[in-house]
């Protein structure tokens, strides 16, 4: 075991290499991997060696050269609209320690305004920290915290809220903000924007700053939300190029690419608007105007029932009935199937060689008959569920499987289902809610 000094201590490290002993002088760093020692050389390189290679470690006398970066001081323009910036984690609000490469959260308004000075002329920023999470670790209880934070922001006079979020499940949280504020027919008191970044802010090429500027610009200056499609919006890069971000309906958006800047696309509808970033600052170009009147302002969001449990299954060659039975036996509140194509499940056995299909059909029919909630959405992401086209679809409807006619994309559907279950009004109310267009997830004019 090597006794490695505290990070920042100047050291002289002598290591065995296969070509003889080598000496390296630099600052000790936390190890870059298990059983490694790592130091930063004067030329900037980090260098690592396995413990077994270390011949000697000598601490040098000079004082450690760790400089704490002072908190920058930034004045804000009091005449600008107030926007709350709610930090939940993710790449966008991270900063890198240039010595170690360690990533930590950046969420004080001063740090943020210092890093993205353009924000100073857009809005007054108040930052709220909900904690730093990987977005894949987010659960419905965190949706509730976000709803709570947006509610507090509006009551403190914010005209808009920007939630910075990891991108992987950003669209799901966006849907949660929409259903929470507008699922019962109202509209949020201000604009709610979710944004993130696909390239970390440490690099010159990061999309973080443009996404953030566009998001704050929309939160500060966008049109009043109507409650339809726009209760929450997702703002990120529109294409691989810089200079334009799209404003997408939070209830019908999806991350469709794991790494590109333009990973987010609206599903079954068009973007609400674009924010252009020219030399004169950000500007909004609206898409087609909404055909709907603004809804009444909601006083408070409706929270999600944190005890609700939904079991999801993918319909394909390996969907096994005993898994479904296990969920039924475990009293899940609803079963959500990601069906194929127009919304089909493997429940027919035309060659009479696949008894599991028959078993699944009987199981689901029984479950629906017993007031169980079974919903189908489509794996194709885009396009409607249409269970009138084939016999099988009609069978599914007859069995009581809900979903026919819906355009709600799968991740939004999961949140919609949770929202409807949280109302606790029984199966028929869920079915009725499913047919409706609660927040713009199921638009009558969808053709894209």
């Amino acid at each position, binding site marked *: 075991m090597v006794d490695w000094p505290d990070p920042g201590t100047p050291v002289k490290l002598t290591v065995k290499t296969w070509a*003889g002993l080598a000496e390296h002088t630099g600052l000790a760093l936390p190890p870059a991997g298990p059983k490694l020692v790592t130091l930063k050389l004067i*030329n*900037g390189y980090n260098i690592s060696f396995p413990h077994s290679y270390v011949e000697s470690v000598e601490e040098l006398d000079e004082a450690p050269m760790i400089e704490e970066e002072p908190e920058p001081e930034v004045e804000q323009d009091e005449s600008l609209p107030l926007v709350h910036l709610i930090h939940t984690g993710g790449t966008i609000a991270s900063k890198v320690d240039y*010595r170690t490469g360690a990533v930590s959260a950046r969420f004080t308004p001063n740090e943020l305004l210092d890093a993205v000075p353009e924000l100073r002329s857009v809005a007054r920023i108040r930052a709220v920290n909900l904690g730093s999470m990987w977005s894949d670790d987010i659960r419905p209880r965190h949706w509730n915290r976000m709803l709570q934070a947006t509610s507090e922001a509006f009551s403190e006079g914010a005209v808009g809220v920007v939630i910075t979020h990891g991108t992987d499940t950003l669209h799901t949280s966006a849907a949660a903000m929409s259903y929470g504020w507008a699922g019962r027919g109202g509209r949020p008191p201000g604009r709610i924007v979710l944004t993130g970044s696909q390239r970390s802010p*440490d690099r010159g090429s990061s999309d973080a700053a443009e996404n953030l500027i566009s998001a704050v610009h929309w939160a500060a200056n966008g049109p009043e939300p109507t409650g339809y499609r726009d209760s929450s919006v997702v703002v990120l890069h529109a*294409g691989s190029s810089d200079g334009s971000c799209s404003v997408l309906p939070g209830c019908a958006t999806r991350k469709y690419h*794991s790494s590109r800047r333009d990973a987010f696309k609206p599903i079954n509808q068009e973007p609400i608007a674009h924010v252009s970033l020219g030399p004169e600052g950000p500007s909004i170009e609206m898409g087609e105007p909404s055909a709907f009147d603004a809804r009444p302002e909601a006083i408070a969001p409706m929270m999600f029932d944190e005890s609700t449990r939904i079991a999801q299954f993918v319909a394909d060659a390996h969907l096994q009935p005993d898994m479904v039975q296990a969920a039924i036996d475990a009293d899940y509140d609803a079963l959500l199937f990601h069906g194929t194509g127009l919304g089909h499940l493997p429940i027919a056995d035309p060659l009479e060689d696949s008894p599991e299909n028959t078993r699944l059909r009987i199981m689901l029919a029984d479950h629906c008959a017993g007031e169980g909630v079974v919903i189908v959405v489509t794996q194709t992401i885009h396009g409607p569920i249409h269970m009138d086209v084939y016999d099988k679809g009609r069978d599914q409807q007859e069995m009581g499987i809900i979903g026919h006619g819906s355009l709600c994309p799968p991740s939004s559907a999961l949140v919609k289902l949770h929202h409807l279950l949280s109302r606790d009004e029984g199966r028929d109310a869920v079915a009725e809610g499913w047919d409706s267009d609660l927040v713009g997830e199921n638009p009558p004019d969808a053709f894209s």
Partner: protein
Amino acid sequence: MAIEPRGDIGNPQDLDPTALGFMCGLEIHQQLATGKLHSRMPSELFDYGIAEVPDGWPRSSRRLRASRGEAGQIDIAARFEHRRNRSFVYVQPPNAGLIEMDEAPPLEHDGDAVDVVLTMAAMMDAKPVSALQVMRKTVVDGSNTSGFQRTTLIATDGVVDTPSGVVGVDVICLEEDSARKLDTQSSSSGETVFYTLDRLGMPLVEVATAPDVQTPEHAKETALTLGTLLRDTRRVRRGLGSIRQDLNVSIACGDRVEIKGCQDLDWIPRIISLEMARQLHMYRLANELRSEANLPPLPPDRDDDKIPVENRVSVAATSRLSLNIHDLSDRFETCESEMVRTSLSEGSRVQGVALSGFAGKIGSKRLDSDGAQLPRLGRELASAARLAGVAGIFHSDELPAYGISETEVAEVRQTLSLEEPDAFVLCVAPAWQSELALEAVVERARGAYHRITREVRNVVIRKGQPADGTTTAMRPLPGGARMYPETDIPILKVSIERWDGIRDNLPLSTEQRRERLQNLELSQNQMDAILSSEMDDILIMGAEGGLCGCKPVPAKAWASTILDNTRADLAEGTGHDESKVPWPVLTLAVHAREEDIITREGLVPLARKLWLEGPSSTETEFEERLEWFTQQAEEAGFTPADTGEVEAAVEEVISENMDMIGERGMGAMGPLMGAVMQKLGGSADGKTVSEALRRKITELDN
């Protein structure tokens, strides 16, 4: 206390490196001939300019954010970057995918590239790093889509042997090459730089030597030695732009600068001498200024600098040279200089600052005996101004000139309330830009009271060549703060087996290769040509035989065949590149020719036939292929006539043409050759016929 540095700045080549405390090291960047480093794309360059780029290649437009300078503060260059609103258009060639577009995370190192660099490390007796960590080196000029260059330290502490002595090698790194600039277009809304991504991500080895280089000539020698060593791996790219040298130069009374853009090794000694002269000049100028201002002198060795003294000087310099920019545009409305008038009519302003006490210090143009511009502060001030993107400045030491009249100079002096010892600098540009430029000028002029700063300098290039060997300032020397770990690529452990395998199989050096060719009876020219085209392995393979069962072929004949146009002739019309001609085909054909199985004329057509239609060399025995080949030769009439037949035909033609021989002697060779060849049909070997004919005519003449 060090002694005052001596030497005549007017004769840079005569400066004494040892006496001046000369220190110099090299950084060599050499492209490797492997796939790209962190994507699995091929390393291929597409020779297109901006006008020829195919329409189908996608383009993306990006900006880079550099909110802070490398020193942690927002410097003039960064403020200029921000103001000029520069954007980058990246053209995506077929060998650039999502990784090159910065749209997907990078992959781990190309294994071949790591092996090549480990090989180089072993050749330099360097100490390998066993856990390789990729670092990101911040780059703000847009030449990397990500905003940084990926680089990995592979080994440290090696040596190279140069004829004048050993030079230490501090670090050996493996880096990604940058994108290739196609064009820069300016418009009122900002500047757009076009890059193509074909070169982005190609592997480069960076070798940085210790400051062991002793003289300017030794720097050239070191560059040559290192270049040869790297090429000895036979795994590096060749040709224009595949290798670059940077020079680190200082003398005791100056400081370290990094000089980029020395592509031509012959220029290296001159560039270095001129830099020594520049450092010496700036040191002497600093002391002149300090003495006139009654400030303590600058010590002759930078190690003796005292921070409190320099701080005091800095305060004094700042108070003497205040940043007070005046708009002087109305004095130049009728200026004779067309450049000034046009700029004014397009909305630019003429602005100026006073440099108190600088009259005669800025200097005017003087050349050394080789025609290089001698160092002067004026060029440094102009370099500083260019950080703000302006083309240049006017200063009072060279005015009146350039269409600026005596009267205008006098008016400026009056407006700025200048005394005789004072100087001024003018800048013609849009107001915001000339303000930045003049701020940079004043900052640089204040710096003239101090030792030169560590910076990166560029060789001045004109028409693709160094203009005269002088350099201009580009940016401050970056510190280690530019680098931080690449978190997307895990640490790569190099095993001892890998290292041992590499060390046990080091490539031959050029000398060893030359040695190998000694016994093959090649001419010196052939040997050099074979070595420089890296064909010696092929040569030996043919000369020793055994390639797909082939018999050895005479080395000299084999050498000419692989060096001359035979392969190109062979490939002609086949739709294949000459590099695709299989060696077993060629060795067999040359063997057949040397054994008189075919005529010389038959070599190309028959070898082409063997290549395209003949039995495969991997599946068919040599004898069987040779039989097929011989049969084809017979069918096509490319078998040599036997000597008796040739002799008979020659005799016959001579007896028919005795008169002509009598008249013309050897001059009859040409026409008679034709006649003999006609008699023999296609089967005669031209060389045999001409030998026989010449012999006969000589006999007759005698």
